[in-house]
């Protein structure tokens, strides 16, 4: 009976992980800007999570736990490759040409490029906060830094992005109008 229970629990946990795979991939991509590497990081994360599932004491903390594993996988990769590794984003030209909202995709590209220019610790924190929606406390737990460091990194990241996007806003965006429906 215990075996059946454990099997059910394992399948249930696997389903929980799978449901989060897509978002894990997006976050990994936001850090490395390389689809293949993002895939590898997520695969490794899921593998480690399944292997260490017994360490997850509270299912409510599954998100923080999973992202912490992903973050550690990412840090391991950086340690092996060295922090000076340069990531080249794989652009999909066909996708851009076919887009109905080409200008909007240009803005997205610009925002990503601005994020890509951030020092890695700032990039990691700002994407965890503003893309993944984690609280300061959760980010502190995921990245294993004090909450004050999270605050200051987030502040510096947003200041940096604000400056870059303000410059962008005054030129390329000048033809856009506030959305009105008439």
């Amino acid at each position, binding site marked *: 009976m215990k075996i059946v229970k454990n099997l059910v629990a394992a399948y249930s946990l696997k389903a929980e992980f799978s449901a989060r795979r897509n978002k894990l991939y997006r976050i990994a*991509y936001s850090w490395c800007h390389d689809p293949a590497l993002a895939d590898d990081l997520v695969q490794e994360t899921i593998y480690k999570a399944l292997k260490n599932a017994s360490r997850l004491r509270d299912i409510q903390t599954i998100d923080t736990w999973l992202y912490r594993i992903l973050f550690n996988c990412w840090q391991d990769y950086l340690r092996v490759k060295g922090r000076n590794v340069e990531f080249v984003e794989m652009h999909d030209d066909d996708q851009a040409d076919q887009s109905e*909202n080409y200008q*909007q995709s240009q803005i997205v590209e610009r925002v990503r490029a601005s994020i890509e220019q951030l020092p890695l610790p700032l990039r990691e924190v700002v994407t965890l906060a503003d893309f993944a929606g984690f609280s300061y406390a959760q980010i502190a737990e995921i990245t294993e830094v004090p909450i004050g460091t999270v605050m200051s990194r987030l502040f510096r990241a947003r200041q940096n992005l*604000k400056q870059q996007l303000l410059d962008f806003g005054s030129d390329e965006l000048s033809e856009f109008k506030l959305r009105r429906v008439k």
Partner: protein
Amino acid sequence: MNTKEITEDKLNLFIDEQLDSDEMNEIRQALLDDKALRERVCQLKAVRELVGYAYSEVPPSRYEVTVQKNTNSFYGRAIAASITLVVGVLVGWSTYQYSPVAGNVISAENTFQYVANHVSVDHAQRKIILHIDSGDLRVVNAALNEADHLLATYREANTPMRLEVVTNKSGINILRPGVSPYIDRIQKLIDDDSVSFYACERSIEKAHKKEGVDIVLMPEVTTNKTAREIIPDRLEKGWVYIKA
């Protein structure tokens, strides 16, 4: 509070609601009187929103091709809408070209507050207020098309949403059976549980005085509040505002 003393890092904490309630209230109060401060908050919110959408569409994972196909259409449209809103903010803070007619308390004095609220992030539920203050055919048609489009988009994505349509001035006429050509169309919207219609109490009184007859509206329409009460209340709670 001297608003010049409010530092950027404090505003950063403010938009993430990481200050204690007293400090949050102090800044909220200061925002009412200080346009420059509202701009600073708006800029930070815009940055946060742009980062939030920057990775909603990414090159597909080799393990998630099927799921990606199913979600792309919604993400595409959601991103398009959101980016357009944010772009409005980016242009807004540098040009102010979109400012509505001065003198209208809702449309002008609180404009930046509205814009700031355009960029509030709510990943769980979309709450949208659609403001119609005109009976112009083109405006009303476009507004109702927008309402249909929003409902269809979020329904398809299985994302919960609330839509409140607030009418005032001549916009209330679209809710008058026997006067409005839109009654059937609006009834369909009202039949959707996620949609509510409001008619400004003050506009109804004014129309009554002007026309000398009772202003009869569709029975489902809420009429006991003014637009000036409803709109700022929703904005304070983080609703997205769309002006028809």
